[in-house]
């Protein structure tokens, strides 16, 4: 396949220590009783994955199969226990639409804050501001505190900011269930456009028809391992069989 590697995951693993108690007293009592104070949970077995520039990849799998953990490693929110995860170019993660939005700020202020959090500079934000607002289509509410927005308006604005950061690598986690049918379509069109521009896309979603529409390649995870990697349609079939 053409193109350089955009996302490289080499032998990355992640386990979580689920601590049942932080308290000194309980810890002591539990130690005497011989009750375990923590459990280890392996979210990702050492895993290798390469995504080329311009590819759009769907991470598929059941709940708890490690999709979101993998995405968080790629986003740099978490560090892997072993191995390494590298990304080429600017990355934006839509791990959750509206993370970083504050209800007490107005829509306008939130656009600035969130765009800045996602890595845009002040000049770029000013240049794209109109476009972002037009895409979100929230009309006269721009200078109203976000707490008064309907949930649909909130998501539209948040999503609009995210898709206008124009990253080289775009991570999307289960956020395409936004707004009404019309807006959803607009979002998908925008994402397809980003992809057509040669940007790399990594999507986590349980919405299989959507995944088939957006992605060319499907990676099926199970218990933190890659069990299938190939064109998206067979991958989705494979997943359906597992479910």
């Amino acid at each position, binding site marked *: 396949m053409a193109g350089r590697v955009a996302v490289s995951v080499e032998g990355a693993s992640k386990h979580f220590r689920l601590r049942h108690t932080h308290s000194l007293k309980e810890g002591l009592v539990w130690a005497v009783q011989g009750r375990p104070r923590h459990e280890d949970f392996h979210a990702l077995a050492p895993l290798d994955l390469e995504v080329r520039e311009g590819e759009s990849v769907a991470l598929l799998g059941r709940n708890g199969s490690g999709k979101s953990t993998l995405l968080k490693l790629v986003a*740099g*929110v978490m560090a892997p226990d072993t191995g390494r*995860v590298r990304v080429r170019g600017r990355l934006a*993660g839509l791990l959750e639409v509206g993370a970083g939005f504050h209800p007490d*700020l107005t829509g306008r202020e939130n656009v600035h804050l969130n765009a800045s959090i996602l890595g845009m500079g002040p000049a770029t934000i000013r240049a794209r501001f109109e476009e972002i607002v037009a895409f979100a289509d929230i009309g006269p509410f721009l200078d109203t505190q976000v707490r008064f927005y309907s949930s649909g308006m909130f998501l539209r604005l948040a999503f609009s900011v995210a898709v206008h950061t124009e990253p080289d690598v775009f991570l999307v986690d289960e956020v395409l269930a936004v707004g009404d049918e019309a807006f959803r379509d607009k979002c998908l069109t925008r994402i397809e456009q980003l992809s057509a521009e040669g940007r790399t896309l990594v999507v986590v979603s349980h919405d299989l028809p959507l995944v088939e529409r957006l992605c060319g390649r499907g990676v099926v995870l199970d218990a933190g391992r890659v069990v299938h990697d190939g064109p998206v349609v067979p991958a989705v079939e494979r997943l359906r069989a597992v479910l």
Partner: protein
Amino acid sequence: MSELVVQGVGGGLAEVARRRYLLQLLVRKELRVRYRASLLGLGWSYVKPAVTFAVYFVGLGLVLRQNSIDDYAVYLFGGLVVVTAFSEALGNATRSVVANGELVRKVFLPRELFPVASVCVAGVHLLPQLLVLVVGALVAGWRPDLVGLLALLACVVLTGLLATGLGLLLSAVDVLFRDVENVVDLVLTVLVWTSPVLYPTHLVERLLGAGSWTFALYQHNPLTVAVDLVHRATWAGASPANLGRVPGDLAARTAIAFVVAAALVVLGQAVFRRLSGRFAQEL
């Protein structure tokens, strides 16, 4: 587009400096949120110190007669301004990473931004108080002198460095052990007594003994140095006799305090960076 880069390795404080715009927005957000639905708004940053000042001034100055200090109002207010700003900065910085847990878990950005923003917010609150202090000192008879102005600048920078260093350190540890918040609150309530804010230094000297190591420790507490600096800056010029009463070795102690503060920033940054890989999963 360039190299493959490992994600999530922040550039620390240097990265914060590069993302000043975001820092500025975070500070503005913090101020906006703190004073939402409030009539006085930023006015509260005048009211609170005014009340604290009035309580101490009446209680200690008038009732307990701290007569040994001339221009007690300037002396007291100067010290209070410094200690209050430090307390606010450190208290909020300690909580900052936990308070922004939502963001820390979802988006990667240099997490040092949060404690640094807390320190900046305290700085914004400090400005009007400094203005009141300067006006008060002018009324009391201070004529601005170069050494005094330098001392004031040194005081502000020193306090900011201390709060940033300790804030980085404690906010990182607070993610793992929330006990830190309570310990910090406890220590902050004591601070006003461990520096010469309410009383003159010579009373402590008499209590601990002039050459004793405990008194040396008291004098080399960086916050004591900051308080001495603010006294040197304003109170010392208010009456002719005051200058001689500023505790000695101030220049040398200032130099040491800056070294300590810089070391704390380096240590805080190192610990913060080490622990920040675990933030997302601990929050």
